[in-house]
């Protein structure tokens, strides 16, 4: 039992540290999704996001391919980080329960 407990304690420390780090990285990513709107036969980029709990469309003008790919990449990363953060929260919950740290 001692060995398992020691391993779990180490894993809990690691998970808590990583949870903090992934949350920081998630917050640092640019928010929103790019939306392309056609106005009078011309296409314009908008950023769809939430501001103070309300949906907002921000006009971005015509973005370069590099800027667009940055937003697309950020969206992909956000999804991945959300999944990893959820996994880490499950890990912490599981380990705390195993160590009887959580009622």
């Amino acid at each position, binding site marked *: 039992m*001692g*060995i*398992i*407990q*020691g*391993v779990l*304690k*180490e*894993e809990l420390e*690691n*998970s808590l*540290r*990583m949870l903090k*780090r*992934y949350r920081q*990285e998630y917050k640092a990513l640019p928010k929103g999704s790019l939306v392309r709107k056609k106005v009078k036969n011309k296409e314009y980029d908008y950023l769809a996001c939430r501001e103070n709990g309300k949906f907002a469309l921000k006009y971005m003008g015509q973005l370069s391919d590099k800027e667009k790919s940055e937003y697309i990449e950020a969206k992909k990363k956000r999804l*991945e*980080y959300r999944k*990893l953060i959820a*996994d*880490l929260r499950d*890990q912490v919950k599981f380990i705390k329960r195993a160590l009887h740290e959580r009622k």
Partner: protein
Amino acid sequence: MSENDKQYDLCFKVLQRLEDAGVLKQIVLIGSWCAYFYKDYFEEELPSPRTRDIDFLVATPPRIRPSVDIPAMLSDLNFFVHFHSNGAMRIEHPELIVDFLVAEKGKGDSGPYKVKELGITVQQLRFVSLLLDNAISFVSHGFHLTLPHPINFALQKLIISGRRTKFEKADKDRKQAIDVLKMVMGTNEKGKIRPLFDKLPMGWRAAIIKALKSENQSEILAGC
């Protein structure tokens, strides 16, 4: 995919990248993951509680060709670099923590060690030099792995068990070492245990005997 499958999947992805970069065969896989890969050496599974750390030992001076930037190589797999308080790096993911180590050359030389060839700064550890002697190479899961010889692995675990501050870690080291030694005793390599033990410095031998005695396994050395 279960939690365990996810970890194996990621571990194999990391190994694949190291193999593709030509680095894998130049570094030695050490730590608790050895027990998992020894099953291909012994053709029998070893029971072992394993943390998510996967440790690699780099021989010094590093002569790794070609040079690679490991943190950059793993960043798209969502690994992040974590710095220890002394500046040494570890590369972390919720499923796996990749750690690189080098052997400490002498007392007072325990600061972080820069491995330019891999783009990392690593921790120096005592006694791990024993893991580089008689290292074995074999193919497991399609990877060309280099691992410490099981006897060296077990004896090193016994030595460090006496220096652990956490009882649980010391207990884990001793039990893992004894499991490996018992596995070796069932093979034709049994006769190699005693000669290797006899070659070790006196202090190391005393530490091994003490660790075996504390587990009531002194007969392991007597029986070789």
